[in-house]
């Protein structure tokens, strides 16, 4: 089911030396969104999704990958309240965010992108919508890229979920 991995032997650390920073880019909500490349372990096609009762809209379900059950995170729902359609062809990036391992669903996967460091800028000073989760904005030869602070996205998802016992079905 795996499609690709960040190439080994490269140094994709965005804050390392060199004139370029490496990110992993997905298309979400029609835009190009990326996050630090080392967070991504592989890209997979989503298998059959098991919906979870009483789950928030940004957690459309779980699926099995190599014997491991992984939660699927819909960033589109979290930041824009618009679902990313999930079809048999839908691909997701498996990411490690601290203790969490999640599958970030996308409209399509672009893969690794290199952005000149001089092209990275601070995100807009908005505190709503997707701007809340951006660590930078940049541009490569294909156009603008919004850099997501993925650990903040995951922590916000946890914080926004209604804890069990505080709501009724």
């Amino acid at each position: 089911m795996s499609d690709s991995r960040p190439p080994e032997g490269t140094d994709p650390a965005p804050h390392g030396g060199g004139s370029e920073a490496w990110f992993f880019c997905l298309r979400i909500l029609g835009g190009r969104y990326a996050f630090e490349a080392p967070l991504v372990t592989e890209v997979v096609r989503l298998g059959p999704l098991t919906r979870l009762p009483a789950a928030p809209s940004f957690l459309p379900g779980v699926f099995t990958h190599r014997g491991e059950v992984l939660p699927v995170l819909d960033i589109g729902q979290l930041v824009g309240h618009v679902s990313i359609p999930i079809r048999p062809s839908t691909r997701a990036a498996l990411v490690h965010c601290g203790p969490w391992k999640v599958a970030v669903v996308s409209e399509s996967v672009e893969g690794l992108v290199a952005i000149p460091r001089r092209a990275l800028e601070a995100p807009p000073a908005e505190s709503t919508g997707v701007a809340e989760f951006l660590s930078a904005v940049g541009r490569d030869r294909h156009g603008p890229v919004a850099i997501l602070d993925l650990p903040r996205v995951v922590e916000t998802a946890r914080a926004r979920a209604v804890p069990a016992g505080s709501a009724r079905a």
Partner: protein
Amino acid sequence: MSETCEILLFQVGAGVFAARVHDAVRIGSVRDVPAEDLVVITALGTPFERTRGIVIAAGEDGREHTLVVDQALGVRSIPAADVRALPPLASECLASRAVAGYVELDGALTLLIDLRALVRERPGAAPTAPNQRAA
């Protein structure tokens, strides 16, 4: 010899779920069950029909409630080790304590439901203490 676990498979709406057999008192028709003892709408959704039910003693007083299901699909014996917990991020985000884990049956991931917790969470039920979740 490995320890086994008896699970009851049932369907609510389009979803198939599993529960520990010992959580169910009996399975039967809902025809003669008083309306106040029926649990129709839960975190699992709403059944298509109101014909079959799983009787559960959910309260501390032993009062029985009947969870309305579309079908009771049968009982399976599985290795106890096959019952797994949901990944932490998923279980933390759920607004229900009724999902006790999952089992893989015939290659499909099937959620294991704590029937007592499910009935306690029904709309209109009295709030429960956080430590009242069944083991």
